[in-house]
């Protein structure tokens, strides 16, 4: 990046006096030049950004260099077109321009090859058939040791046996795998066994997935599910989840014991709110029906004064 700036600074005088007069420079360019030539403000000084975005600066510098080169080329062409007789030194100028263009292209390549600050890749939770995100910022490089990903790759190559082996090894290596991830692995196993015609195993994994969904949820999972249901206003799910939680209250760890009280409270609130909301709807319906009936039968008798 510093190389690019040096090229930019050296390229400006090379464009000749006609192109390099300060009056012709755009204010932004002036500001850039002054900033480049001035002292660097101390960190934390007023008006300074908290941290330099090196990638963005490099990109901007490359774009400026390209624009500058193009303008210089246009001016050169105009001079060539408008003046039949080449002034002395035009051959050297053309060479300089060509060099400038080559340097710009080189700068662009350097910027493109710079490492980007991509987020750390998350383990893929969905099955292989899951659609890719619509517009990923930068595709993360897959972990070569992730058995799930390798299984997806193998399945993509129609090597279902290898995919099954990898997934089963993954299950054995991670006995504390999160229930949602475990369910995904088992779903994939069901699918690959079915692809191989091994329907018995496919059904076995399907049953295991169903069982996992139905029952085998640890108190932590149930608390998280209840919180999600409460956040979404899904009262029916909230009740079911808290009921499951309370049925296994002996294995609730001390850290989650407070949720026992919350479970009872939210169950009570849930039923009460449903009854109250329905009663209010009913009352409003009856009021409007009575008003309509009275209007119909009496023509709307007003209060006696």
């Amino acid at each position, binding site marked *: 990046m510093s190389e690019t700036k040096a090229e930019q600074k050296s390229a400006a005088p090379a464009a000749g006096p006609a192109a390099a007069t300060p009056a012709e420079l755009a204010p932004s360019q002036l500001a850039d030049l002054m900033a480049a030539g001035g002292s660097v403000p101390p960190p934390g000084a007023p008006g300074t950004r908290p941290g330099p975005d090196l990638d963005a600066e490099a990109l901007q510098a490359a774009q400026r260099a390209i624009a500058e080169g193009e303008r210089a080329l246009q001016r050169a062409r105009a001079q060539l077109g408008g003046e039949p007789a080449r002034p002395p030194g035009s051959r050297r100028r053309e060479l300089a321009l060509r060099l400038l263009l080559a340097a710009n292209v080189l700068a662009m390549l350097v910027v493109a090859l710079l490492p980007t600050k991509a987020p750390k890749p998350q383990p893929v939770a969905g099955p292989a058939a899951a659609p890719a995100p619509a517009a990923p910022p930068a595709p993360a490089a897959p972990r070569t040791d992730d058995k799930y990903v390798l299984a997806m790759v193998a399945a993509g190559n129609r090597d279902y046996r290898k995919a099954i082996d990898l997934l089963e090894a993954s299950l054995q290596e991670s006995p504390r795998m999160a229930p949602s991830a475990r369910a995904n692995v088992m779903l994939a196993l069901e699918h690959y066994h079915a692809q191989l015609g091994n329907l018995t195993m496919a059904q076995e994994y399907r049953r295991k997935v169903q069982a996992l969904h139905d029952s085998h949820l640890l108190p932590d999972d149930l608390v998280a599910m209840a919180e999600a249901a409460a956040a979404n206003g899904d009262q029916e799910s909230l009740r079911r989840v808290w009921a499951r939680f309370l049925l296994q209250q002996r294995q609730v760890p001390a850290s989650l014991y407070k949720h026992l009280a919350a479970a009872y409270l939210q169950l*009570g609130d849930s039923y009460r709110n449903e009854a109250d909301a329905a009663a209010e709807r009913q009352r409003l319906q009856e009021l409007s029906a009575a008003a309509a009936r009275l209007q119909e039968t009496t023509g709307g008798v007003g209060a006696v004064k």
Partner: protein
Amino acid sequence: MNAAALALAVCLQASPQQPEPLFTVRAAAAAPGAVPRQLVAADRRLVDCLTTLRGLCAAVGWSLAIESDPLQNDLAFQSVDLNLADQEPRLVAQLVATAAGADVVFDEAATIEGARPTLHVVRRPDASTESGRQRLRSLAGQWYRSFLRDELQHEPLVDEQGVQVRMNLGQVLVDSGDLESAIGFFTAAFDRRPHDSAAAAVLRIAECHLDLARGQADRAAQLAHCQEAERWARRVFESMPSAPEATPATILLGRSLLGQARAEPTIAAARGRAEACQAELRARVMRLVDSVEMLDVWLLAAEAHVLLGQPAKVHETMLTLRESPYFDELSPRQFLDYHWLLGFGAIGVQKTDLAMRALEWFLIHAENDPRRGTAHVLLAEAYLAERRLLQARAASVEARLRHLGTMTPDWRRRALEVWARSALALGDRESAFLELEQMIARGEEPELALFVADQMIADRQWERAIAVVRGLLDLDAPAGDQARFKKVQALYEQASAGGHLEDFPPLAIALAPRIGDPGLRGRTATLIGDAYARLGRVEHAADAYRGILR
């Protein structure tokens, strides 16, 4: 053959053992004489809800009844993990049903020997029906009670939300009609003061007592509940006089005093309570001036005037209410009160047209109001005064046939009088007299005899009038005095019309000493004096006019 049977028996004996029961049951220690509680424990994974409920019922000796096959399939499809100990079996059944999206209803065993309780598994309650909402409230109450149980009392959440949950639970119970239990929870919330809901709890308790009083048929019970309501309302003034709840407490105080007035057995005591209500309202009305709560104060004051028998003041109060800037903000209940009171007051000041319109409005809008009977009576009186005889007859018949049983004695007498007057006014005298005589002979309405006697005397049916009051002649009470005087009056009219006035003085003189009321006794002496005067016995007449009867 025998060998085959033996082999079968051996096979059966050698069959695998029954699976271990899902639930274990133990009896919890109970108070002496009480039935020991059953507590269950379980530790099993991946059990479907149907199996769980069957196992629970088998363990605790219940019968299981599932509403439908689809519901049974749903229960079989849903699985749960069980890891619990020392839990109430009913609570566990409810939790399993809730986990499967269902509900359970427990049916206690019949009293016959060998009968078992039944656990009914049903679909979750439907909130669109009143019974469904009641069930939802019942479930809410059940979970709130679990929240407040002793085991969780040291939880910070229980400490933080305990008062609000008690208030919610109380309201759920009020909505379910269980007012006695609701009072218990509101009281528990109040006892945990200081907190922001203390005054609200007091108001709820007072309202519950007033509602309980309204549902009582026994006057003593009504009086007791109204007194409790008064006591709780006064707590707001004593401990939280500057709280915003002081305003509704004033209204509740007025309502409780009027409730006591209606429950009092004697008119004098009722009047005393009504006057006390007026005094309380006067003392506390200053802080309510220019507030919407004044609407309630005026209505209460007018009701106190009704109890004091002051229809003109009722009318005046309703005129004041009508001028209020908040008049259009009257709630439906307050509008009903206003129209009934306006009708009552307008009758009292002979504004019968206004009374008629107000009471017609009331009857159109008050579908199930307990005052419909009295409104029909008042409306009949208004129609009669307006000479709209057919309408008066219809209103009085409605009051007599449909509402007589709900009225107080005073209103009942008034209803029968207007019924009789409307019949007589329509010219249907003979049948009306006959029916009235039968009612009096049956002893249903003794005081109605006085009214009927008046009507018969006016109709020149003196013998019938004397016969009608015969049952009251020996009564040592104001009604007895009235009856004796009416007999004197009938005898005088009869003697005058028959031209044998000389028979009248001895009969009247025999009755006169038994008339205790000085006014009536004076009028009796005047009639005797008139008779003597018309007979030309001036000295006797003069003595009679002076009160000397001979």
